[in-house]
């Protein structure tokens, strides 16, 4: 039996059109706009989003071009300028024509180190967030859709993780294994999966009662297909919103770990480590040493937070915006 026998009557006109006859002119083709497209258009007209987005683009460019800028200025990130980068007592020198942001306690160019620090902050922020979001989505989907025993186990794991203090776990883990770039991503990423997991789980529990899930099952879709083809597209907006707000949090967490000495290890340039080091000098008048790394951290996290809010407004037009 053929799939579809002869088409009749009314549909023949459409067949003819398909066979190559031109579509009558004058009929305006209305292009369907996807929800993503609509969100993008809302985002594009949001001033706060444009400012925050541009700031992030500049920061990312500076981070990417750090080696280029360093070679252009002629100062390496770990290069010590004992002669001109330190005063007679071996202390940092203030901002001047050679060192725009001054130098640090070891006579290194603070400006170049801040640029290199952005590479660490951004990459850990993004990678840790991706880890959190990926884990959170998978566990949230499984807990919400499968339910029962799986849900109970995941819910208890999340409860436990929310109950233990972040810093205590992070410091313990970092002291068991040698602190490194990847370990920081692992700690921040894994400890951050609980919130996206809870959001996804809640969404999935309400979505799985919808008829389109029943329809997919009636067509023979297995649980994996239902979760990733039918449910995932419906939670991805919330995940993106949460992820965009998770990036600044991850950057702060990374800086915190470095500040406490269990993050990325020296001599790698890192904002948290710089702030920590600068603390000992601030009271003696070396203000630039503390100011510039703190400012870099503040501007970056603020830009991500504002952009995250705008993304949420764009993806969920019903919610009220703070920065509109």
């Amino acid at each position, binding site marked *: *039996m053929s*799939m*579809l*026998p002869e*088409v009749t009557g*009314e*549909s023949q006109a*459409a*067949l003819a059109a*398909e066979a190559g006859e031109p579509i009558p002119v004058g009929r305006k083709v209305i292009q*369907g706009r*996807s*929800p993503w497209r609509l969100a993008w258009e809302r985002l594009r007209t949001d001033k706060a989003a444009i400012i925050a987005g541009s700031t992030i683009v500049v920061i990312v460019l500076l981070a990417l071009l750090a080696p280029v800028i360093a070679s252009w200025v002629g100062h390496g990130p770990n290069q010590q300028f004992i002669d001109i980068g330190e005063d007679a007592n071996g202390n940092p020198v203030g901002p001047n024509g050679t060192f725009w942001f001054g130098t640090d306690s070891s006579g290194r160019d603070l400006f170049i180190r801040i640029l290199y620090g952005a590479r660490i902050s951004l990459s850990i922020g993004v990678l840790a967030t991706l880890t959190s979001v990926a884990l959170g989505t998978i566990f949230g989907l499984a807990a919400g859709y499968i339910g029962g025993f799986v849900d109970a186990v995941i819910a208890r794991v999340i409860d436990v993780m929310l109950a233990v203090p972040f810093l205590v776990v992070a410091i313990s883990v970092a002291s068991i294994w040698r602190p490194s770039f990847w370990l920081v991503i692992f700690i921040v990423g894994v400890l951050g999966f609980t919130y996206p997991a809870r959001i996804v789980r809640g969404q999935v529990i309400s979505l799985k009662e*919808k*008829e*389109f899930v*029943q*329809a*997919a*099952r*009636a*067509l*023979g*879709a*297995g649980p994996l*297909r239902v979760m990733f083809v*039918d449910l995932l*597209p*419906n939670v*991805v907006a919330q995940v993106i919103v949460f992820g965009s707000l998770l990036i600044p949090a991850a950057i702060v967490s990374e800086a915190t770990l470095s500040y406490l000495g269990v993050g990325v290890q020296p001599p790698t340039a890192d904002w948290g480590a710089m702030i920590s080091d600068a603390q000992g000098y601030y009271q003696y008048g070396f203000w630039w040493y503390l100011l510039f790394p703190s400012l870099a951290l503040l501007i970056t996290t603020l830009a991500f937070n504002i952009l995250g809010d705008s993304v949420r407004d764009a993806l969920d037009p019903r919610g009220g915006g703070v920065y509109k």
Partner: protein
Amino acid sequence: MSDVTPVLSEATAKADSANGDDILLQVENLVKYFPIKSTGFFQQREHVRAVDNVSFTVRRGETFGIVGETGCGKSTLGRSIARLYDITSGRIVFDGHDISRISQRRMRPLRREIQMIFQDPMGSLNPRRRVGSIIGDPFAIHRTATGAERKRRVQELMERVGLNPEHYNRFPAEFSGGQRQRIGVARALAFQPKLIICDEPVSALDVSIQAQVINLLADLQKEFGLTYIFIAHDLSVVRHVSNNVGVMYLGKLTEVAPSDKLFTVPRHPYTGALLSAVPLPDPDHSDQRKQIVLVGDVPSPIAPPSGCRFHPRCPKAAPVCVTADPPLEPRLGDGPEHLAACHLPMAEGENLTEFRPTIVAAERVIESAGILAPDADGRGNAAAGGSIDTLPTSREGGKA
């Protein structure tokens, strides 16, 4: 699929020509209970008895209608047959396969043969996916067509159900209610299933659109020899489309009959009450008709009434109705195709409004509190004994 001829003649589809080989679906004593959380630690687990001991058969090429009030279990019945739920007990035999207990994995190939059309045309379509991808789902899930081939077949389907194939890339939100339901129909039609369970396919649609969708379903049935289970609460729709009709009340079938018989000679008082509630287009006729107003709500399916589940609301209720559950069988000399579960079935032309229950009020409220209401002329609860009121629909006569 070779045994399904493309066009089954209407005559063979009729229930009257009963033929054992014709049976596509046989449901025997189907039970579906949903457990609900018990409140106390030592309390026994309670269940919602959504479908309780339902049996019927569906022949190839026919439309079997299922009617009943909201919450009577008709949707659960449909979804249980499609094995979206694991059934509590009973047997479902589809096309010679016993599918009552098989695992979801082994059910998967059979899903090509049993499809569903859902009530809410928006809710049954994934809002985040394009129509082409939604209708192409069956091909993707069963890996039968990919890429350009899938697109071609999806567009054929869209065309067949009256959608513009150019709208392949649109989202469900860009279609009207009727068009969305056509998308649902196209998806269900992808594999030319043997059975399509239509779960209130038109009740969310505008009346003029209802007719279009029903006609589409009827055309497709003729063209592909489809068998439908048509679930609805709109009696006139069911009468229009069905060869046989089952009436459900509180999880049980109360009456099963060929469509014409059911609507002309109803045996069960519940069917009679439902029929009297169908609006008539002729106001003169409508004024003269005695409408049977059932008082009270449908009792809880967690603790259904004893005996006949309809007895607390039935105008003919007698003591036997409280104690014994009437079997579903031919009554008053009906043929084997007309079954009713009633101890005191209605005779032809009988006027239900003349009856008063012969059981006392206390017995009638055992299982369902709060069904008594003051009747038409304001007598109190005690006197109201009968939980049914007889009013001329003009509402001016005062007392019947």
